[in-house]
């Protein structure tokens, strides 16, 4: 295709009247590594190191022998590599009176986390759905209170709960702590689900109603299939939150049900005998392993979860 009547430039000379014989700018600008760019990378690398050093220290120390640790040199690689601390942490470390390592704690954490996650997400999704689509009296008030509840420090209601559970007979039981986690997970999760459902087109809901579907049918046949992204996010948040919990674990679970975090603290902070740092470090990594694994596998969803939760209110 040709261009039509182009007005020709009237006698323009390309060279300027400058005397220097420098290069006439043309085409792409030469890219020099500007100090600003270097600075950016430098800052980010230093920051990354700041964040990574604790992890490095943990791993490295957990693979060293105790004699080496006593010498200090926190940042050195092990002179002799050993996996014994890991074995000890898992099987032999002393958490108070028992010396069975973290393995019972791991089992407990699983027993606590899985039901809590399932129940709390199930309930929260139903609640979120109810709040966003079915207007009933007092819905807004309940919602407001719920949001407020998300921010209340646990310590404020801990004592009444202790008394209440004791009276019901659920204190220091597995069921008790599952109930606690479920209740405290409700505000944030309900918020999450409600915001998600509020973002769905309402025509979906109306069409289903016109078709004659009631509360539960709409939920199971329409909402649930569409909820996969937010459910993943909710699962990640809940698993991380419940697995990492300490306060409720130590108060409500009861000695035989102590989760890993409580056991970890016992292992590390017991004042009898010498501190076995390598075992402690190994124990720490083991405790952190599950949420970290989930995080690294589902990194993007995790970030989206934070952003989604943060966009509320």
């Amino acid at each position, binding site marked *: *295709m*040709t*261009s*039509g*009547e*182009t*007005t*020709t*430039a*009237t006698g*323009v000379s*390309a060279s*300027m009247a400058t005397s220097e014989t420098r290069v*006439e*700018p*043309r*085409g*792409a*600008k*030469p890219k020099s590594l500007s100090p600003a760019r270097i600075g950016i990378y430098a800052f980010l690398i230093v920051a990354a190191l700041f964040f990574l050093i604790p992890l490095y220290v943990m791993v490295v120390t957990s693979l060293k022998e105790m004699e080496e640790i006593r010498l200090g040199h926190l940042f050195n690689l092990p002179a002799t590599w050993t996996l014994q601390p890991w074995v000890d942490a898992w099987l032999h470390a002393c958490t108070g009176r028992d010396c069975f390592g973290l393995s019972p704690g791991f089992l407990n954490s699983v027993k606590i986390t899985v039901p809590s996650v399932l129940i709390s997400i199930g309930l929260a999704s139903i609640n979120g759905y109810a709040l966003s689509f079915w207007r009933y009296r007092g819905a807004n008030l309940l919602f407001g209170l719920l949001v407020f509840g998300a921010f209340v420090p646990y310590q404020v209601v801990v004592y009444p709960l202790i008394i209440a559970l004791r009276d019901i007979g659920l204190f220091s039981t597995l069921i008790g702590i599952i109930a606690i986690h479920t209740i405290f997970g409700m505000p944030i999760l309900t918020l999450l689900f409600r915001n998600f459902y509020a973002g769905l087109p309402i025509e979906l809901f109306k069409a289903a109603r016109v078709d004659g579907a009631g509360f539960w049918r709409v939920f199971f046949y329409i909402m649930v299939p569409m909820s996969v992204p937010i459910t993943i996010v909710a699962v990640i948040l809940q698993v991380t939150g419940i697995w990492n919990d300490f306060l409720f674990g130590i108060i409500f679970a009861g000695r035989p049900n102590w989760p890993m975090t409580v056991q970890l603290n016992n292992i590390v902070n017991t004042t009898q005998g010498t501190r076995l740092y390598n075992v402690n470090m190994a124990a720490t990594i083991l405790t952190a392993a599950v949420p970290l694994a989930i995080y690294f596998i589902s990194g993007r969803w995790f970030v989206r979860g934070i952003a989604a939760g943060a966009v509320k209110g």
Partner: protein
Amino acid sequence: MAHVSVRDLDVAFGSLKVLHNLNIDVEEGEFLVLLGPSGCGKSTLLNSIAGLLDIVDGQIWIAGDNVTWKEPKDRHIGMVFQSYALYPRMTVEGNLSFGLKTARVAKDEIQRRINAAADLLQIQPLMKRRPFELSGGQRQRVAIGRALVRDVQVFLFDEPLSNLDAKLRTELRVELKKLHIKLGSTMIYVTHDQIEALTLADRIAVMHGGLIQQLATPKEIYRKPVNLFVAGFVGSPAMNFLEGRISKANGSVGMKLVDGTDVALAGYEFSGQPQDGQPAVLGVRPEQIELKGAPGPATLPVTVALIDPMGADSLLWGTVGKDTVSVRIGAEDTYQLGQSVKASFQPSMASLFDAESGNRL
């Protein structure tokens, strides 16, 4: 010397070449419109001139300076964006003065320039307001004012009216034209709306596929489009196209349409020598077709299909063989559906294109 000069411009995104060896000159004080559909490269060209895009090869000259490697702020340009991009948390005054303050211009000089711009654009009473309190027209003026206070030589507009409803668009279009007359500055304006182009431009550059199809005055582009694309893109309702072959007989040139109808083309200015039998496309604008009065030498048999009343006049839709044509008729004229009418037109006003290359014959 041209005020803005683009030479041998190559722009690519990764391996995708968007602009190739593009040359264009803009005269001082000219209002040039870059017109084309989405993806034709007009915004890319504008952003390259502005310095917001990296180019692969070529040079950009503005006001006598080679600005190819210069930052946008050193290119003597001001730019108005589709969303106007006013800083939302600053007042109008803040918006106008922020750039100058950063450049450490003296306070009284800043004030002087703001007052001058405010008077010219009549935004003096808006100084203390925030962008969300302004109307669309006011925002446009503030956006222009932001460029004005920096004493720029060239104004760049990136589809500033595209986000507005039709009525507002017409009003602001008129304001822009008046502004250009008042300021007399060089303006380069990007749009996909051909009505904006026709009303605002001193010259239009119609772009398609990264190339300038035609660079000419609006009148020229409308009357003598240089190829099929330009002919079909400019003009509303669109030009009618009829396919057929050139037939040369007895020294006169005519056209045989696909369905066999013969159309005389005496009076058409050919730029070269058409071949007999050459596949061609005849282009006639709806307002150039006449249904009343004595039919002239060039006629088309039209079968009436539909009439669209459009208020001031009506649009008659009909068929010529297999092709659909539209004709402007008076609001009061009536025709029967299925009626056959003889439509005539002036070949000298029409356009003829080679069917393969699309170029004007």
